[in-house]
């Protein structure tokens, strides 16, 4: 029996629980889930707030980081129980294979190890002590002190295995209590992470609650959201709309909706010499998490006129995907989704048959390329080649002769678009599509890389990363174009006294002299 929830000691007492079977029939896990009522939520929120006041608020950030470092270490240690349990329980659902879950844990926790958490905090708040006391920033004329929210509501999606990691740590770092709602598709990692935090540091554990209830519940959703000073949600458009409807005025609300990623290969990077390495990295970005994540590339825009043609790139990428299917095997694919892949393949073959399609998509109709005024003649696009795994939907590569933006059915299905330059991509993303782009993997070097990065950030793509590291975002960056802590932070400032303004002295406005109240706000 696996507990698919975490509640601090005391809250578990008297709780009604049910058992649900999770995963494939032949190897289902029996999940222990609490029966959550609106009254429970109200009571838990109250208890969490008190626990935070007593346990978490008085801690200094370095103390918190010391505990979180231990948590991170445990999930990276192959011999330690949290990592073993994560791999065992997550793989039982069949959605992701064991090598994939290991990668997910590494991708999520490694960037936080070895001082990663401190760097993350400093990159956003300017100082590791910013949440503890007023500290000097860039200008000594003003001291700043950051405040996290009293508590946070976080709602997780279940599309990729390690999604809850940085959100949960961010709540703890902000000294906020946390009520987290898991996803029915992946209800295991978040409670395990909370339990591990509690094992390492019971003061932190006292301020966390991780449960599941059915999304859209008329009384539970509003109860959780109504009082929340801060909300972070991952989900589909409907889930986000629901949260927006109930969030209180003044709450800090960050919504992470549906996104996909893209990749771009500049012509000078298209050399036979590095082609296998490049496509291996590309295949890894595609294969990881079976393209279920927002960081998964769905399209590769490949420049024409390189030493390697887009067509050759397509072929070599296909063999790289075949190789990846061996060392990073794919998880189970629901029949409905495999059916969608088969339909996409058949459609691509239909287009590749060479007979002119009707007309391009409406996105392009609204925005014809310059010089092509007659809508019907706007380049007839479509697949020119389909390369696919035989006897399965394991992977699919579709070559198209021009750029467009249309995410595919995932599970390792990509399009390669031959392009003349980045303007082709910019054009394909016009009309608002760029808001669905999370990241762009960029293969280019030197001044070309800088130029392309300037261009792609200029059209609003939130993250540019090297191909091969798309799935391992640095915590110093953004998620969904948003910093991870800052949206939830408010500030107190202390302006220097007139005397010290006349004669500014770094020492006199010392960070040492201002311990401040230990319990913030």
């Amino acid at each position, binding site marked *: 029996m696996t507990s698919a929830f975490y509640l601090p000691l005391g809250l578990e007492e008297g709780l009604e629980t049910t058992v649900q079977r999770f995963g494939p029939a032949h190897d289902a896990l029996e999940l222990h889930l609490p029966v959550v009522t609106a009254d429970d939520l109200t009571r838990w929120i109250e208890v969490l707030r008190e626990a935070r006041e007593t346990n978490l608020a008085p801690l200094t950030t370095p103390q918190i980081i010391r505990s979180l470092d231990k948590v991170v270490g445990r999930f990276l240690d192959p011999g330690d129980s949290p990592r073993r349990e994560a791999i065992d329980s997550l793989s039982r659902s069949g959605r992701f294979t064991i090598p994939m879950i290991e990668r997910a844990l590494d991708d999520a926790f490694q960037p936080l190890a070895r001082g990663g958490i401190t760097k993350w905090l400093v990159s956003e708040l300017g100082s590791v002590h910013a949440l503890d006391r007023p500290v000097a920033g860039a200008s000594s004329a003003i001291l700043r002190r950051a405040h996290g929210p009293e508590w946070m509501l976080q709602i997780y999606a279940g599309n990729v295995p390690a999604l809850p990691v940085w959100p949960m740590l961010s709540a703890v770092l902000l000294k906020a209590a946390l009520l987290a709602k898991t996803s029915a598709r992946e209800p295991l990692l978040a409670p395990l992470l909370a339990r591990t935090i509690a094992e390492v540091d019971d003061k932190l554990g006292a301020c966390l609650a991780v449960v599941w209830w059915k999304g859209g519940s008329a009384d539970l959703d509003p109860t959780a959201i109504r009082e929340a000073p801060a909300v972070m949600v991952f989900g*589909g458009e409907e889930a986000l709309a629901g949260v927006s409807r109930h969030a209180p005025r003044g709450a800090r609300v960050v919504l992470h909706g*549906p996104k996909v990623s893209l990749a771009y290969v500049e012509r000078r990077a298209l050399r036979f010499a590095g082609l296998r390495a490049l496509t291996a990295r590309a295949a890894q970005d595609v294969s990881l998490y079976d393209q279920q994540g927002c960081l998964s590339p769905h399209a590769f825009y490949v420049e024409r006129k390189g030493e390697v043609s887009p067509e050759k790139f397509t072929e070599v990428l296909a063999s790289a995907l075949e190789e990846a299917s061996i060392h990073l095997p794919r998880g189970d694919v629901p029949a409905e989704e495999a059916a969608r892949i088969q339909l996409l393949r058949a459609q691509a073959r*239909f287009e590749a*048959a060479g007979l002119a399609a009707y007309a391009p998509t409406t996105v392009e109709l609204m925005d014809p390329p310059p010089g092509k005024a007659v809508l019907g003649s706007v380049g007839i696009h479509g697949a020119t080649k389909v390369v696919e795994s035989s006897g399965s939907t394991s992977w699919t590569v579709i070559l198209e002769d021009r750029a467009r933006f249309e*995410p595919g059915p995932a599970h390792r299905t990509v399009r390669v678009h031959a392009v003349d330059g980045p303007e082709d991509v910019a054009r394909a993303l016009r009309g608002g599509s760029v808001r669905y782009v999370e990241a762009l993997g960029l293969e280019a070097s030197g001044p070309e890389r800088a130029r392309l990065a300037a261009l792609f950030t200029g059209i609003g793509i939130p993250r540019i990363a090297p191909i091969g590291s798309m799935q391992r975002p640095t915590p110093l960056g953004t998620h969904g174009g948003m910093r991870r802590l800052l949206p939830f932070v408010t500030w107190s400032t202390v302006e220097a006294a007139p005397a010290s303004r006349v004669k500014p002295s770094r020492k006199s406005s010392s960070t040492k002299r201002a311990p401040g109240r230990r319990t913030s706000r």
Partner: protein
Amino acid sequence: MKKPGRYETLQSLIAGADWDRARDEEFDRHARGAFRDQYVRIPSYRAYVAHIGMDPERLEGWSQIPPVPASAFKTHDLSAATAGSEVAIFETSGTSISRPGRIRLGSTALYETSLLKNLKRHLLPDHARLPAIVFGPHREEAPQSSLWYMVDHMVKKEAKSGAWLVRDGVPRWDLADEILSEAASSNQPVLLLGTTLLYMAYFERLASMDRRFALPPGSRVMDTGGAKGLRTEFDRAEVEAAFADRLGIPSSHLVNEYGMAEMGSQFYDDNLVAAVEKRPREAGKRIPPWVRTRVLDPETLREVPDGKPGILVHYDLANLDTPLAIQTEDVGTRVGNRLTIAGRLPAAEARGCSLAFEQFVEAERRAGTKESR
């Protein structure tokens, strides 16, 4: 130009089809003939067949006819009717990133023969002639919809009278109240035709007013759209309970339909047939004798045995102006001549990030609400 010979042959084949006897050889002969015809008359289909290396002369049986992906109607003209000569143009649903598919018909005769034969069998097995109430728009208001064309034709040919509840895109619920209350106080059973979504919206209104109409025994319903696809799909038991509670219609008289614009034929539950014939109802929808459905393994595309789920590929002799073989993204199981369409996975949960994109597109599609198919 249409080929009158084949139209007429297929029309009489469908009109005279025997529900109790599957004539496989006959089906095979006609399917191959229709395929050869379509190969010649539909250039984009011909290009596709050539591209995948299929030689129509070497076809060994109907199951080798290459199906077109349903999505190809969105990108290619797949009609044998010469432009301008079509008597009906139906559209499939479009999204913000794709145009709707288009089905151009040079003749609606085959479609009409098929839909009437099927509807009469499954909704009027007792040969009743009833006043019809349509939970939807008149065909003239939705000329692109094959569904409302079908309903219109049914009312015209087989009903005593017809009333349409949706006008200018707006449901006229007051009118519904009036008509249903009148029907409830008479002895005349009625025939309801419409979408599950619209019926359920109306029942919500009735529930809020705490109103019910007990329709006379023999009243019956065709509902469509609730069995698959839309994410707001309802639990079948919930739909049945609502019809029983609000209109007094037993589940034996609630007949669900599955169809698509790309096909001239539809699939029905045969619970009403079973009730009239006084036999227990069978699970699944009836595959009409002039249609075959292959169920393919989603990974390998090999045919799966009866009872195993897979991708549905339909072969429909009512399709002559457009390809008869259609590969869908629907998943279901077949047992003999019965088909069960799998509902989508429960989607109550936020799915986040990437995969939700598909749902986002679906949500946009749904925002268009019009039931175009």
